[in-house]
């Protein structure tokens, strides 16, 4: 038995459809804030040092400006792109997510193989009222993560998923 070869017939190619739900719109703000903070980590010390140390000023301020420009561009554009591409869906049989824009990634985990369901909220996520849902399987590399969910939706989902996975007792490995 061999895998089917390419079908030469015309028509749209076989592909994965986008998952049904978008993440919470507040995720855009959350991602932006993360990127701004990430930019600030190198830019602020460089800028402060540049203002204090006159002889090295051009060597410190130039990278600071470049980094700030790149960071600002990323913070202004990427979160919107991500918001359009990060999607998730939970069916009776599986958890399905899509993430990334340049490197797109789809993940599927069947509920029958799910081992744990967690929700986590970092300090920034709490400010935005968001939560991250993590569903793990027996594979060390198979976790499915949904970032930027509304905190209450995430908690409800986690509860539903826990019930659903208990209802399908099967050796998870």
């Amino acid at each position, binding site marked *: 038995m061999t895998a089917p070869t390419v079908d030469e017939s015309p028509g749209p190619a076989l592909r994965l459809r986008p998952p049904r739900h978008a993440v919470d719109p507040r995720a855009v703000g959350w991602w932006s804030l993360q990127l701004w903070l990430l930019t600030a980590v190198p830019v602020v010390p460089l800028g402060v040092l540049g203002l204090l140390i006159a002889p090295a000023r051009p060597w410190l301020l130039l990278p600071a400006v470049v980094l700030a420009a790149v960071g600002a561009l990323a913070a202004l554009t990427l979160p919107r792109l991500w918001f359009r591409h990060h999607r998730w869906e939970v069916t009776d049989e599986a958890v399905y997510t899509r993430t990334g824009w340049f*490197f*797109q990634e789809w993940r*599927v985990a069947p509920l029958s193989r799910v081992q744990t369901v967690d929700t986590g909220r970092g300090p920034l996520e709490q400010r935005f009222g968001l939560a991250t849902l993590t569903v793990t399987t027996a594979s060390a590399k198979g976790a499915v993560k949904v970032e930027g969910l509304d905190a209450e939706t995430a908690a409800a989902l986690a509860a539903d998923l826990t019930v659903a996975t208990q209802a399908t007792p099967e050796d998870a*490995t």
Partner: protein
Amino acid sequence: MLPGFVVAVAAGAASGEWMWRVTSYHVDPERFHVNTGVVFRKRLALRRERIRSVDLTADPVLRMLGVVTVRVGTGEHAGTEGTVTLWPVRQESADALRGTLLAHAARPDGPGAEDAGDGMLARVDRRWIRFAPLSFLSPTLGGAAAGGTLQVADWFGMQVRVVETVGSWFGVAPALLVSAALAVGLLLVGGVATVAIWVEYWWNHTLDRRPDGTLQVQRGLLTTRSISLEESRLRGVEVVEPLAARLAGGARVDAVATGLATSEEDKTDSRTLLPVAPKEVADRVAADVLREPSTPPTAAQLTPHPPAARGRRLRRAFGTVLAAEAVLVVLGLLLTPVLLHVAWISALVLVPLAVLLALDAYRALGHTLTGIYLVARSGTVRRATVALQRRAVVGWTVRQSVLQRRAGLITVVATTAAGRGAYAVRDAAQQDGLTLADAAVPGLLRPFLVGADLPERVLPPG
């Protein structure tokens, strides 16, 4: 005053004696109990059905005394919690303990029931030693030998003299010749060291299938190891062909199993069922391990990947060389023209090499489905053909970058509890890759697939 080492030896012996006195184990129908600890008493109870491996190790001193170290593993991913080490245990007691603890793995038709597949599956052949030096260890150990020599010379204040001596050789013969001779010498030293390591590891290697339903690897010249793997944990095999070994016609067989050590330093070794051996032998052992009658799934005819995958590999190879050369050229223009010469000479070597590796990497790509296995191959420096049981797939990760999408390629990764946790089919044609994933685990990916070319449903639900 007593000399320090006497105190140290006495203290070591006393603490060893004490540890031995306070450590005990027993097995009841449900659990395997271990009591240990001098300062903090520790009681461990491992549920017997969770125990997945019992490995016996003995270094030369332990062997002289007729005792072994026993490591009992539950295969839990949570670090060291899942492993208990008992040391020292009498050889006979250790064998008995292993028999008891792994009894639950026995086949349903009862322990001791003879099976055609039982017995020795492989035994090391001394001629395989020719594959030993064909490893990245050889140049590494050669380099280490050079570094070690300089270090030792430094302790005696002779480092300068060593450097001067080596430097003086360059006056005798052309520099290129001397460099080549030095490199060959170091490679030889490294090769000898690699052979020595191979002998220590793989001497007396045997791979057996025992009536209690385990595969057992025994090996070692000085330190002997005996590693058991329950067959019920086996999810497939991986036939690995490192570049140099492959050129010499060799391949290694690794087990893909759940619950094998994942965090310890010898994680590759504990998975290896057969050291690098001639490809035919590796294929036969792979077939025997999987109880396949003739050809193993890893030797199946694979569906090749589209030419766009070759283009990607070539572009990546050129890109890597170009980046390295660009650094040389920029530095050459800024500092010294010598670097420009280094750049064009190295480009003459590196560009063909990169092209060869890229073409070889493309040739490696392939995938197929057999009755119960998903088979995927990739890699050039480490070409690996994995046969993973389709029922062991616990999810899919599908990846596609913008560039891959334009080329119509897709990377499909099967996640699993066994082995490395994820096995990838890289750069397959989009249609092929998704069809493969859909067919390998019926029903899982189907609800999320769209497109006119949707193949017939493979399996009715329920």
